[in-house]
C-alpha cells in the first residue's frame, strides 16, 4: 500500500469492496436457496419467477421424517381436528402420514440414514485421529528409516480415486460379509482419514518445542508419561482441528458409501440423491434433508476458520 493514497486509489478501493459484496452474495446464493426452499410450501418451490418472499413452513421437515401417501379424499373435519399439528401440516399439502396397524407413525428412510452418518463419521474420526496422533508423534520426534518414503506412502493411499480402491474393497468385503455394515464403512473411512491425520498432526507436533518433554524427562517422567501429560495437552488445538476435518470428510463422503452400502448402513449422502427418482421430486423435502445434513458442517466451518488453510493444504501452509 502506498504511503500517500491518491483519489483514484480510494475510488478503486470502494469499487473493490462493492465487488467483494457482490461475489459473496453470488457464492452464498445456492446455499441460501437450499435453506429457503427447506421452509417453503411445496407449490412455491418451483415457480417462475422464483418465490423469494413467503410464509415459512415447517411442513418439509415433517415430511422429511415420515412416510406419506397421497390423500384420495380430503380428511373429515373431525379427523382433521383430532390430528396433531404436524399431521395437519401434511394434510394441508394433500397427503397423509402412513401409520401401521397399531396407529404408529411410520418413519421415512431419512432418520436412520442420518444416524448412520453420525455413527460412522464419529467412530472413524476417533480412530483416525487417535492412531494419527501417536504416529505423528513418532515421526516428529524419532528418527525413522525411510521417513520421507513412508510419509509419501501414507499420503498416496489417500490420493487414489475412491472408485479405484472401492473395487477390490467391495470384493473383499463381500467375501467376509462386511458389505452394507457400519464396521465396513468405519474401517474404510478410518483408513482414508488416517493418512490425512498423520500428515496434519505431524505439523502440529513439530511445532511443540521438544524442550518441554526434555524438561519432563529430566524430572523423571518416562517418555510415555511425558507424551500423555505434556505433549497431548499442548497438541489439543491441533487434535481438535484434525478431528473436525476428518469428521467433515467422512460425513460428506459419497462414492464409498454408494458402492459399499445399500440400506442397513447407508449414510445420508447416497440416500438424499436417491430420493430424486423418476417423476416430479418434492424439492422442499430434499432441501429440508439437505439443510439438516449441511448444518453441522456449516457450524464446524465457523469453528475451524483459523485452521482451514492448513487443513486444506495437508499442512503444507501454516498461517
Amino acid at each position: 500500500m502506498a504511503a500517500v493514497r491518491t483519489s483514484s486509489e480510494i475510488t478503486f478501493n470502494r469499487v473493490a469492496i462493492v465487488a467483494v459484496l457482490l461475489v459473496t452474495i453470488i457464492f452464498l446464493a445456492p446455499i441460501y436457496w437450499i435453506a429457503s426452499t427447506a421452509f417453503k410450501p411445496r407449490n412455491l418451490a418451483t415457480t417462475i419467477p422464483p418465490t423469494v418472499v413467503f410464509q415459512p413452513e415447517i411442513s418439509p421437515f415433517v415430511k422429511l421424517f415420515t412416510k406419506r401417501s397421497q390423500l384420495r379424499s380430503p380428511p373429515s373435519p373431525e379427523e382433521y381436528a383430532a390430528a396433531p399439528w404436524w399431521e395437519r401440516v401434511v394434510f394441508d399439502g394433500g397427503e397423509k402420514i402412513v401409520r401401521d396397524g397399531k396407529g404408529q407413525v411410520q418413519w421415512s428412510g431419512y432418520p436412520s440414514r442420518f444416524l448412520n452418518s453420525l455413527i460412522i463419521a464419529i467412530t472413524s474420526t476417533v480412530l483416525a485421529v487417535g492412531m494419527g496422533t501417536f504416529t505423528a508423534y513418532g515421526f516428529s520426534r524419532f528418527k525413522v528409516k525411510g521417513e520421507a518414503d513412508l510419509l509419501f506412502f501414507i499420503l498416496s493411499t489417500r490420493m487414489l480415486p475412491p472408485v479405484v480402491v472401492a473395487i477390490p474393497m467391495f470384493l473383499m468385503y463381500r467375501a467376509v460379509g462386511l458389505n452394507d455394515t457400519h464396521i465396513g464403512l468405519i474401517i474404510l473411512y478410518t483408513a482414508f482419514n488416517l493418512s490425512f491425520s498423520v500428515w496434519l498432526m505431524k505439523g502440529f507436533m513439530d511445532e511443540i518445542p521438544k524442550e518441554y518433554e526434555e524438561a519432563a524427562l529430566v524430572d523423571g517422567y518416562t517418555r510415555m508419561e511425558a507424551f500423555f501429560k505434556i505433549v497431548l495437552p499442548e497438541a489439543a488445538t491441533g487434535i481438535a482441528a484434525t478431528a473436525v476435518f476428518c469428521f467433515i470428510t467422512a460425513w460428506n463422503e459419497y462414492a464409498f458409501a454408494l458402492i459399499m452400502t445399500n440400506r442397513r448402513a447407508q449414510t445420508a449422502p447416497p440416500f438424499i440423491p436417491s430420493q430424486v427418482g423418476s417423476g416430479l421430486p418434492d424439492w422442499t423435502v430434499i432441501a429440508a434433508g439437505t439443510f439438516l445434513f449441511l448444518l453441522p458442517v456449516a457450524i464446524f466451518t465457523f469453528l475451524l476458520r483459523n485452521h482451514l488453510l492448513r487443513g486444506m493444504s495437508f499442512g503444507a501452509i501454516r498461517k
Partner: protein
Amino acid sequence: MATTMITTLDRSSRAAARGLSDISIRNLFIIPTVLFLIVFNIFPLIYSLGYSFTDFRASTNAPANFVGLQNYRDLLNDPYVWSNFAITAKYVIVSVVGQLLVGFGVAMLLNRDIPLKGLITTLLLLPMMLSMAVVGLFWKLLYDPSWGVINYALGLGNFEWLADPKMALYAVALTDIWMWSPFVMLLSLAGLSAVPKHLYEAAAIDRAGPFYTFFRITLPLVAPILMIAVIFRTMEAFKTFDLAYILTSQPTAELISIRLYKMAFQEWQTGRSCAMAYIVLIMVLAITNIYVKYLNKVKER
C-alpha cells in the same frame, strides 16, 4: 523435512529404567498405523492387480480365467476409454483454470482493508466444506430449464444446462468452480498477505504502474503458493466422481471415474475394471509424486 531429534535418555537414568525405550515407543506408535494402511490400502490393490489379468465377473459364480494382458490391451485400444480420458482432461482444464481465475481474482479484491473481512472470508469458504454429492444434487434444481433460478436470473429462457450434450460437462465444471474457487482464494490470500509491503512502497516511489506492480511483484511472489493450489485441484478434479455422477448422465460428461464405476458395478466387468483402475492408479501416483516433491520444496522455504 528435518526430523527434530530429541536427546536420548541416559540408559542408567531412573525414567529409562521404568518406561519403555524410545525405540519401542517409536515402533509402538508407528507400526500399527503402517500395518493398518497396508492391510486396508495396499493389500486390496494387490488383490485387484491379480484380478486385472483375468476375465472375472463378480456378478456370476463362474471362476476367473487368466487372460494375461488382454484387459490392458483391450482398454488401451478402446477409443471409448480414450474419449473418457479426453473428457476428463477437458474437465480438469476448464474447472482448474476457472477456479484459478475466480479464486485469485476474489483474493486480489479481498486483499485490502474491508469491513467484516474475516466473516466474509469464512462465508466464502462455506461451499467447499459441504458435501459435493448433496449440494451437487441441489444444483440440478438451480440448473432446471423450466424453473431453475439460474436461467431466470440470467434471462436465458429454457436454456438446457444438463440435458444438452455440449453443455453438460461445462455445467458440472461450473458447479465445481463454485465449490472450489474459495480454496484457491484461501491459498492466494495467504500468498498475497505474505508479500512484503515495502516492495509495493518502493514500486510506488518509482511510479510503477499497476500492471507492472502486478506482473513484476505480486504474481512472481504468489506463484509458488498458486502452484500448490493448481496441483491440488488438478488431482481432485481428475478424481471427480460425485458431482458429475449426480448432475448428469450425458455420455459427453462421462469422466474416467464414472466410466470405471459403470464398468465395475453396472456392467460387472470386474477383471477389466481392475485393469482400468490400475491404469488410473499409475497416472495418479505419477502426479502425486510430483506433488509431494513440490510440497516438500515449498515447506523447506
